[in-house]
């Protein structure tokens, strides 16, 4: 066991810290979950890519720098500490990217990964349907083979940034007679396909960040099938594992938020020395939990680098980070008291209302990527070994 970072890791961390502080935009952009902000954030993807900092953990040939998992975790820590803009292509880079590495053909990897890395093609996830949420395998959107194409009919929903995304990765039923997990396929669909209609839906925070997507005889070339026809569920599970484990939500995000929470407390106690001590306890708990997530991930990263694999325990991670995100933001809001409800634009809003917008965002955490109730079932059945029936 050696928990110090070695000279290479430290140099790597210093390099990204220096670069990002020199290059992060100074302007405050519109939220990336608006059409304007979406395009502003796309330019940042390009800037990152050109400096080799978009996907540092990917192979060089796809625009990365082949960094190790530990270095990538340090990159994430520095990224979030810097306060740089969010990554508008997270669904591509963190979810579809790893899935392509596992399941894509060489042609598909060459075709999709570089444009994903440079922000030319921003991705959305098209999985949930109006009648298929937690029970994803009940999905009904069909894609019927017609020559070199699939013809898609059906509806997807809750597609984050799906109204403007360049591409959508979907799970569809390619065998209309099939049921449940069989007969599903993983299909990459261009956002501008004829027969694809998108309608933005305003989220809890007011941003039109969700999209409903309607497929009306939408034709997609068979070269966009990821994995074999009928193997969609297995491919989807690779994505889900990224979604729950450390790809989507590395500790850096929460460490930075916990540090900001500590700073906020110091400011608050200076203004009001009579702040209830329970608030300090919450700050302590949130800080400690962010640290716990960090060390859990370093331990898992070591295990992966030593050749291990992360299975159903990824669900522990998803439970933990989603609850941690709420805990951090809820603590800040309680500390701010009536000021906490102020949003961007209110003259007295603390930090431009970011604590409230962060809180609203965090509220989605226990729902997306498989609800936390489903995660608890997965942990109980597949990690602890309790009976399904």
């Amino acid at each position, binding site marked *: 066991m050696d*928990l110090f970072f070695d000279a290479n890791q430290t140099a790597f961390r210093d390099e990204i810290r220096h670069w990002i502080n020199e290059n992060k935009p100074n302007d405050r952009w519109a939220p990336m979950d608006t059409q304007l902000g979406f395009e502003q954030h796309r330019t940042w993807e390009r800037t990152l890519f050109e400096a080799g900092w978009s996907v540092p953990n990917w192979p060089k040939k796809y625009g990365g720098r082949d960094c190790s998992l530990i270095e990538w975790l340090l990159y994430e820590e520095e990224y979030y500490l810097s306060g740089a803009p969010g990554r508008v292509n997270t669904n591509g880079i963190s979810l579809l990217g790893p899935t392509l590495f596992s399941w894509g053909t060489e042609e598909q990897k060459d075709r999709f990964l570089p444009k994903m890395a440079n922000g030319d093609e921003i991705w959305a996830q098209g999985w949930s349907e109006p009648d298929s949420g937690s029970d994803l395998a009940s999905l009904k959107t069909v894609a019927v083979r017609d020559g070199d194409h699939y013809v898609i009919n059906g509806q997807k929903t809750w597609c984050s940034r799906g109204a403007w995304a360049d591409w959508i990765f979907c799970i569809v039923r390619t065998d209309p007679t099939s049921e449940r997990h069989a007969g599903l396929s993983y299909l990459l669909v261009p956002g501008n396909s004829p027969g694809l209609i998108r309608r933005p839906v305003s989220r809890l925070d007011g941003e039109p960040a969700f999209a409903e997507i309607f497929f009306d005889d939408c034709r997609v070339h068979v070269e966009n099938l990821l994995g074999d026809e009928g193997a969609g569920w297995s491919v989807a599970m690779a994505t889900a594992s990224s979604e729950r484990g450390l790809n989507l939500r590395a500790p850096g995000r929460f460490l930075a938020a916990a540090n900001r929470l500590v700073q906020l407390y110091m400011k608050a106690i200076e203004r009001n020395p009579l702040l209830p001590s329970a608030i*300090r306890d919450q700050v302590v708990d949130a800080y400690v939990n962010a640290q716990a*997530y960090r060390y859990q991930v370093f*331990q898992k990263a070591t295990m992966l680098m*030593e050749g291990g694999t992360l299975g159903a325990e990824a669900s522990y991670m998803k439970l933990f980070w989603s609850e941690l995100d709420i805990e951090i933001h809820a603590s800040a809001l309680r500390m701010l008291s009536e000021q906490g409800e102020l949003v961007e634009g209110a003259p007295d809003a603390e930090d431009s209302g970011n604590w409230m917008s962060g809180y609203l965002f965090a509220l989605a955490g226990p729902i997306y990527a498989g609800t936390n109730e489903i995660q608890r079932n997965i942990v109980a059945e597949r*990690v602890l070994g309790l009976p399904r029936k």
Partner: protein
Amino acid sequence: MKFSFKDEQLLFAEATREMLRKDCSPEAINEFVESDSAAMPELWNSFASMGVLGITASETLGGLEMLDQDFVLIMEELGRAACPEPVMEHAVLSIPLLEECNNKSKYTSILKSAINGEHRLSVALESQYVVGADSADYLLLFRDSLLHLVAKESIVLQRQASVDSSRRLFSVKWDTNSGTVIEGDSDKVRSLIEITKLRAEVSTAAQCIGVAQQLLDMTVQYVQERKQFGKPVGVNQAIKHHLADTGKAIEFARPMVYRAAWSLNKGDTEAELAAHMAKLLASKAVDLACKTSLQCHGAIAYTLEYDLQIWLKRGLTLSSSWGDIYRQREKIADCLGL
């Protein structure tokens, strides 16, 4: 950054687990409690012959000279077995205190006999009850900024019955003149006490993790066997979610305990904070494990006839020992400057 144990660290823990399974079974613990004896000599001898009693001691004295990261897994095993013998007090707290004091050359023979198990040591810092004082030959006691070594003949013990009757607690009365000052430099004493408290927090945290894991494992087993409404109670989501939450608390406390153990010997500037955080999370994990394991078992676990009670009570006592969650939060807040 490499966050994994070496094979020899894992093997030593596994050997300890095997030994405890044999010599520290629930039957043996129950027998020990019923007999009201001061010690479990057979178990103690097994610890001695494995070298566990000398884990921290210098090799020149016959010890294993291990770092906290080397024996943190052994502490976890002590919790998993609900070991009644005060191994931490003896091997992790007392021996290093005696070895690190200025007059240590005078105590070579006591140290050697402590390492081979002939003599037993225990310790009290500030105003604690002393665990296993009635089996100890010597106690290390702190008074007026000085550290004393006091032989059992010079101490008046008063039993303080614990809810966990396999934990033998005592208050001690002693005359300052009856002890030997082993460390007279009050600054040195202060720093020795500080580091000893941190080690105690980390080793107790590791024991909490072991207790919590055992409670969870027993409950996972039970809810598969226990049937109601014609099916195992473990098929119900209410049960599954209690146990998933318990597993999560353990899963996220454990690396913090290992990290804290590593930090103690590595000049990590955050060693103190790490120890406090480890004990906070381990206490929380074991509190939750106690609550959910009792609830998921139902009435059977609310009896002395069923062995879960051994770990429930150990969890209850270790959760508060060397810093309950409220005191840990205070310490952490101090470290963070809050």
